[in-house]
């Protein structure tokens, strides 16, 4: 049997970091047990990258305590660098090197780990191993970046927005890879502003806004905490201004009503009662229905409810 892994992959207490007059991280607490895939969710500027870069030892916090795999950056930087796999946002690897050359370079920094060729196989870049990095697609570059994070056989992986800017197919390919790493028992901390990514990959997520966590739990728990299961979205064309909002709010099975970009969003507990009631009410107000959509509540709705903004508002 292998030695027992440390209980916590990551332990953060009262972390603070300020840039000039912007508070990037404002008293953050976080625990990630070993073997968990944990997601930091939030819009741009929420402090996700600052947090992850402090954990990676790339940024000095102003105050607070960070324990990574039971080590502290101040005393065990060398030890930690050997044990972490890191993928940064927006790293451009040298375009003139080939995939294999790039991985041999990164492999040479680590005391242990699989041979470069094995990692190339894992991220399915065998056919591209002698191609220049400059000629890879976005998804292939991102898989190469992940491979660079894996060559040292890390105990803890930091992935900062691993699928941002990728097309849907490339994203799914990367998700499958990350799921495989989870199966192999690695601890992972990833940041994302894609809700579906967090719901699919993460055991637990923390929603971050303005440098703090505003909610923490499994995706299922967070959605359940809304107390609603469905969201109804409709629009009445140009007649939206005449809509009687108060009347809508008192309909059967409706919790909360707000307007957004000309359409109305309602949180509903029971769809089969809410929709007929809505139709009847619009009929009574003599307003046309030009669009009607419903979906099950997601982390996105949790975020909107918590902050009043969308995750990808910018």
């Amino acid at each position, binding site marked *: 049997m*292998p*030695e027992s*892994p440390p209980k916590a992959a990551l332990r953060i207490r009262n972390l603070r970091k300020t840039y000039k007059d912007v508070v990037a991280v404002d008293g953050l607490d976080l625990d990630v047990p070993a073997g968990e895939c944990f997601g930091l969710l939030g819009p741009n500027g929420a402090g996700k990258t600052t947090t992850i870069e402090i954990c*990676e*030892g*790339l940024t000095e916090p102003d105050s607070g305590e960070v324990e990574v795999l039971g080590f502290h950056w101040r005393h065990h930087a*060398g030890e930690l*660098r*050997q*044990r*972490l796999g*890191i993928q*940064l946002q*927006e*790293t*451009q*690897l*040298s375009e*003139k*090197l080939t995939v294999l*050359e790039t991985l*041999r*370079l*990164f*492999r*040479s*920094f*680590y*005391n*242990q780990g*699989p041979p470069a060729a*094995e*990692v190339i*196989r*894992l991220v*399915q870049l065998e056919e591209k191993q002698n191609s220049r990095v400059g000629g890879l697609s976005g998804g292939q570059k991102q898989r190469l970046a992940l491979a*660079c994070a*894996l060559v*040292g*056989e*890390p*105990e803890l992986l930091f992935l900062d927005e691993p699928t941002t800017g990728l097309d849907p197919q490339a994203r799914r390919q990367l998700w*499958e*890879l990350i*799921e*495989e*790493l989870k*199966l*192999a*028992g*690695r601890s992972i901390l990833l940041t994302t502003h894609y809700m579906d990514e967090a719901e699919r990959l993460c055991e637990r997520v923390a929603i971050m806004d303005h440098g703090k966590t505003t909610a923490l739990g499994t995706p299922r728990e967070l959605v359940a905490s809304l107390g609603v299961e469905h969201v109804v979205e409709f629009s009445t064309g140009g007649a939206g201004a005449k809509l009687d909002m108060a009347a809508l709010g008192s309909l059967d099975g409706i919790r909360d009503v707000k307007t957004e970009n000309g359409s109305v969003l309602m949180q509903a507990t029971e769809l089969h009662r809410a929709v007929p009631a809505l139709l009847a009410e619009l009929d009574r107000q003599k307003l046309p229905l030009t669009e009607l959509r419903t979906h099950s509540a997601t982390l996105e709705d949790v975020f909107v409810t918590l902050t009043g903004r969308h995750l990808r508002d910018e």
Partner: protein
Amino acid sequence: MNSAPALIPTTRKSVKPGRRALMDHPLAQLTLVRFREFLREPEALFWVFVFPVLLAAGLGIAFRNRPPEVLQIGAVTTELARPLRAEKLLDVREFSPAAGQRALRDGKVALLAVPGTGGSVLYEYDDTNPEGRTARMLVDRALQRAAGRVDPVGSTDRILREPGSRYIDFLIPGLLGMNLMGSAIWGMGFAIVDARRKKLIKRLVATPMPRHYYLLSFALSRLLMLVVEVGVLLGFGALAFKVPVRGSLLDIAVLCVAGSLAFGAIGLLISSRAQTIEAASGLMNVVMMPMWILSGVFFSAQRFPDALQPLIKALPLTALIDALRANLLQGASFVQLAPQLGILGGWMIVCFAVALKIFRWR
């Protein structure tokens, strides 16, 4: 996805570092990267290896030594022209007085000889023009001798046209120094700033890579490239123009290494904080431009006013070029080159120390 082999993460086998092939050493890998990036950039290859040779060839041909030039002069009477034709270094033409004036003004002749009053001669020429002054001496000597003057002191000439005193001999060490400066500063500056701009430095710093290996890989690749660079230019000079190499090759090697390290340190300092290629190239030009002009690459630095000389002598490129010239052309020993080596060493230590202090690793 099931076909891909899963990595086994839970145990960390205690593999002893260092028991790896030499090529898998991080320093070897980093240095290899430097070479690959350089060799895969055809433009860089041209500027470092081909351009200096083309420049040397072009200037060597343009300024090649020609047989002594014959000076064009004019005379307004046949009596004056006849004795002058006996002088081999003069090409004498006869003019009417007005046409002679015009030819002198247009620079077609360097001097016009006109009969003066009472059997004397009047020379008209521009005394700021070396050709005019030379013509004045040759014409006067020819006329005086034709009139019967006997020189009291006999004299004979021995002509020396030896390699070592020609323009190309002066030029090759200058180009060598300029090339060492350019490739060190550009090579270092662009590579580092580009890596910083692409967040590649930050990514490397996030690995266990020892930071000094990163900088050392630049020095190592520079030194290996140096052998080719210096060899190409010196070899070309020696083969095509018979430029002498009078000092020992070991001394040249030490000089080139010292120069390269000094300029490498300057390049490191220039690129230690710059975040964009534009900012870095501006800085590089500000640093290199004065030295291209002041340090005696194409013409002697002695032409600048005396007050500037101490400043010019303290420039690293002046030190390197002076030392290379003294070594190649006069065979100067190390002891004689100590001041120049001292200057290069000083620049290297100061720039390297400051650069390390302020280097932006992200």
